[in-house]
């Protein structure tokens, strides 16, 4: 048992090191598919994004997280999904992005990633799975991950920076989801075609960005205060 524990830990360490390169490889693959005009762009990019998700998930799994570590992720993901279902009638207006950012800030980047990825996966069980599911998992996971990283480096000392970040990040999310369609499914890719596809998504992305900033303005301060109070009450997570 001790031996298997140490192998699990060394696995966790290796997977942890692979995490960042693989998260970077995903957008890189999309760019390279465009540059080299790869014929199987849709399949190749799907394989890469799934590989990135599997590595991140396996890193989390093998680190053998304690229950106290799992629970906040589960609760925030479930709240994000409940919010997404609540706003399901208005396209792209949902609190998931905002909750992912908060999760990354309060509980660290890996927990933020897991909240985003799990919220996307499980909410699509209610709203419909499709080829977009891994991309949503990646994009929302990235929202949580980057939130955690930026907070660690002290980027959110002033509260307005986080609203701006939410705005920027929503566009990044939209860009990733539009790109997977443009790169994989528009062929041959021309400037006009790409612009038209991104233009079609722009209205939704603006709605998403404004709503994310508003959600952050609404819940960031009170949620963070409450979460820190709970942390003091129950001891370290």
């Amino acid at each position, binding site marked *: *048992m001790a031996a*298997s*524990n140490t192998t699990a830990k060394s696995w966790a360490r290796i997977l942890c090191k692979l995490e960042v390169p693989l998260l970077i490889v995903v957008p890189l693959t999309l760019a390279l598919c465009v540059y080299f005009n790869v014929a*199987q762009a*849709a*399949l190749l990019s*799907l394989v890469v994004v799934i590989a990135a998700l599997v590595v991140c*998930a396996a890193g*989390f*799994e093998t680190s*053998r*997280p*304690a*229950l*106290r570590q*799992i*629970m*906040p*992720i*589960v*609760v925030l*993901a*479930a*709240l994000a*999904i*409940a919010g997404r*279902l*609540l706003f399901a009638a208005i396209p792209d207006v949902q609190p998931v992005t905002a909750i992912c950012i908060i999760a990354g800030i309060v509980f660290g980047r890996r927990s933020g990633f*897991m909240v985003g990825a*799990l*919220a996307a*996966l*499980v*909410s699509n*069980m*209610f709203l*419909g*799975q*499709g*080829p977009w599911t891994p991309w949503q998992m990646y994009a929302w996971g990235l929202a949580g991950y980057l939130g955690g990283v930026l907070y660690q480096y002290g980027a959110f000392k002033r509260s307005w920076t986080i609203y701006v970040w939410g705005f920027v990040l929503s566009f990044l999310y939209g860009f990733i989801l539009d790109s997977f369609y443009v790169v994989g*499914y*528009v*062929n*041959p*890719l*021309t400037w*006009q*075609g790409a612009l*038209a*596809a991104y233009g079609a998504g722009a209205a939704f992305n603006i709605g998403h960005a404004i709503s994310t900033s508003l959600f952050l303005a*609404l*819940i960031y301060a*009170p*949620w963070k205060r*409450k*979460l820190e*109070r*709970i942390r003091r*009450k*129950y001891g370290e997570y």
Partner: protein
Amino acid sequence: MNNSGTTIFDSWHPFVPLAFFASVIVLSMAVFQPVFIAISFIGALASSIAIRGWKTTVKSLRWQLPLIVLIVLFNPLFSSLGSTVLFTVGPFTMYAESLVYGICMGVMLVSMLLWFVTASSVLSSSKVMALFGKRIPVLSLMMSMIARLTPLYVRRGREISTVDSACTASGRKKASVVAQAAKRSTVLMSWSMEDSLETSDAMRARGFGASHTRTSYARYRFRLRDGIVSVVLLVLVVCCAFLAWTAASQYRFYPTMPMLRIWWGYIPYIVLVLIPTFLSIKEGIRWMR
């Protein structure tokens, strides 16, 4: 056809439908050749009707067909490539090749959507848990908890709103709608978070995580016939992949499209995508007798 939640794949181990749908989805994504796309679409439609029933399929096609039209028009308008000019409108020239490409793209996307919905109606969450629960215990625990907590939180949110409205109904200073929403969401979050930490303490007190591996109750057993079917499926998929690769590497949309001929190599793919339909017809005949 049935609303009882049972499907024709229920008599097999969940690995069999997982392998089937995963390979069909990958093949439909990878092979961009008109005949293979058409076969995949017909197979997806037939499987969806066989497994999810007429009404549900038509309902999902209602929003998918406009999507096809959009994609069909989108591609030729912006990717003017090809050699056979159909017509010219202002700055746009419509080529036959580009139009056919757009049609193929639209049909492929819709058949993939159909395969995905059919797959998720066959692979219920309990089957996914049965497949992965032992190998990834932490993540499957988290997923089943999230799936269970989401409806609870929706209900809890409603309860909080009702109580809050009742408490502020008697002429206390009314908060703005926005401030009210922020307060209610914060109450929901902190209630749920504290609740979940109590739950985790209770789980630990009952011995959760005390042993290295967690035992689980296996509802599905991988029997010999599941193994045989899996091997047959694998052979068929490899065969289809090879034939599809041959066909797709000989086919070009631009600048001109070659003529399509009748070819025996399409038969294995037809058999593969129609497996769910065959199974459901077999089931139907058995029940008629």
